[in-house]
């Protein structure tokens, strides 16, 4: 054991196994941060790119060629190459916004190649005036922007397994992304159509080959639903619904219907395939929870995480993402000793409702074993449960909406792996 048994040298420590006060870190006065070894000879040389002109301009920028490992990964079932999902490389990103090219994808029959000049959005059903909109018409309406996360209802499902899957943050939790979405409030369009008094639900249907469809409550439509046209300032990416998608902030990803073509106002749920046979949570008594809409309070540490091996003892920043479909994140606690002790992480501003919140806390790794965990609490007081508590409540077959605390084990070698703790 190389683990030091000596007590912390100062009162900077706020929890066991080396967690340092987040405020000291923020003011840049965290004690004991070691300086690197003196610069090796030649490290500060004049490099070739400093002496000849660089590349010319390009119409649409791409990441550096040195970042070619920062990509989505995923899989499709047999016979269905466009059906399935790809996942966001959470462990290789920072901040709280996902670049458009790395936003996770989930399609039920591939990504349609929709001509925006031909695409229409129909609103009908229990309305006084059914309406058809062209993209040009939609683009003339008053718009709003919302920074929100989208998380697939099936994200983190591997943590239902009996043994920890030997996977990284991307493979386990990467059906999670975030963007600034801009578009027309659904309530604006419903006002124009005139919702009948007996209306209580809506059906949203996509223009893909599966005509993916989901029902959602009228209350949500009138609250903060958006007919989104833009993603991080540019038109939606095809795999995120180009040219128009439904955005239901905080709700499970499957409901944010992409390639939105039709909204039908109804007096009850249509009971589509994806709200009955899928996205329902089977509990131990054989009954399934249906219409589980908000993604619950959750967090995950993205750095360090599997694949990001700690090379030497010393200072590291533990950083991750926290979110709640119910509102804002109130606090995130971090433990590095397997939940024996916890310390508050710093929350990166702005902390927005139903958005990803980046948290950070400094850590001095002493070279010994550690178990890294984060626990989020939202403004309504919802606390992220332990895995044992969630499984005790819903059983191991619920599959969807897995929001329990995830654990990374750090070995003396510095290797980080997915563990249960």
């Amino acid at each position, binding site marked *: 054991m190389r683990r030091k048994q000596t007590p912390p040298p100062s009162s900077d420590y706020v929890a066991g196994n080396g967690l340092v006060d987040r405020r000291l870190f923020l003011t840049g006065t965290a004690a004991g941060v070691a300086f690197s070894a003196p610069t090796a000879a030649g490290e500060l040389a004049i490099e070739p790119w400093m002496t000849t002109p660089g590349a010319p301009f390009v119409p649409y920028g791409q990441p550096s060629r040195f970042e070619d490992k920062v990509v989505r990964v995923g899989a499709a079932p047999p*016979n*269905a190459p466009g059906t399935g999902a790809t996942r966001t490389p959470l462990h290789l990103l920072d901040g709280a916004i996902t670049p458009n090219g790395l936003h996770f994808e989930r399609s039920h029959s591939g990504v349609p190649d929709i001509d925006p000049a031909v695409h229409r959005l129909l609103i009908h059903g229990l309305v006084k005036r*059914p309406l058809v909109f062209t993209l040009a*018409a939609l683009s003339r309406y*008053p718009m709003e922007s919302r920074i929100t996360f989208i998380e697939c209802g099936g994200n983190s499902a591997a943590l239902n397994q009996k043994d920890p899957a030997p996977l990284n943050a991307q493979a386990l939790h990467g059906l999670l992304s975030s963007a600034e979405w801009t578009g027309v409030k659904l309530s604006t369009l419903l006002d*124009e159509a005139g919702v009948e008094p007996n209306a209580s639900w809506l*059906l949203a249907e996509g223009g893909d080959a599966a005509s993916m469809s989901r029902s959602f409550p009228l209350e949500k439509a009138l609250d903060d639903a958006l007919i989104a046209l833009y993603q991080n300032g540019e038109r939606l990416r095809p795999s995120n619904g180009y040219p128009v998608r439904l955005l239901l902030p905080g709700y499970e990803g499957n409901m944010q219907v992409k390639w939105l*073509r039709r909204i039908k106002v109804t007096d009850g749920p249509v009971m589509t395939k994806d709200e009955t046979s899928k996205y329902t949570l*089977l509990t131990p008594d054989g009954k399934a929870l249906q*219409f589980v809409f908000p993604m619950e309070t959750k967090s995950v540490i993205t750095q360090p995480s599997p694949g990001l091996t700690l090379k030497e003892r010393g200072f590291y920043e533990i950083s991750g993402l926290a979110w709640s479909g119910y509102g804002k994140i109130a606090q995130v606690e971090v433990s590095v000793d397997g939940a024996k002790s916890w310390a508050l992480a710093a929350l990166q501003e702005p902390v927005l409702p139903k958005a990803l919140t980046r948290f950070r806390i400094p850590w001095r790794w002493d070279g010994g074993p550690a178990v890294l965990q984060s626990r989020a609490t939202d403004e309504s007081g919802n606390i992220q449960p332990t895995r044992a508590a969630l499984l005790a409540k819903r059983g191991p077959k619920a599959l969807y909406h897995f929001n329990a605390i995830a654990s990374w084990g750090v070995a003396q070698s510095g290797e980080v792996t997915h563990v249960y703790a």
Partner: protein
Amino acid sequence: MFTHDVVLAAALTLSSAQTLAAESPGIGRVPTQEEIAAWDISIGPDGAGLPTGSGTPKQGETVFAEKCVACHGEKGVGKPNDALVGGRGTLAGDQTPVKTVGSYWPYATTIFDYVRRAMPLNESKSLTNDEVYAVVAYILRQNGVVGEDEVIDARSLPKVRMPNRNGFVTFAPGK
């Protein structure tokens, strides 16, 4: 001064957006009933929206063999893709649940809705309404939900009682 007033007026307009919410371009076009009918393919659990046409399990067997078997296996038992048949009694307890149309789906209308809009995967919306009714009848028959000679149509389909009809509980936060 004039410029200042204009800026101020613009700021006031933005801050009072609430009261101006009714101000919208009003440029949606009112579609014809025929246009709506052509688009509206969703089928409610009461059968609302089911088209004319009909099919029997026997007719469905032919459609299934031609259009479905490659993905859903002989008699719909699954592989390489989802199983449509079997799994009754596997939902509760410690066993691995086998969620199929017969063991899990609460409404028979959903089968029609889904098959018509999304199946077969490589040529969705290619089946006639009669073919959809027939293949629905076949899947229901394979699950023992309807008899061999049952005619499935807009009248009979909503009356089909699925085995797991009472298997769902509406979620309330905290559960």
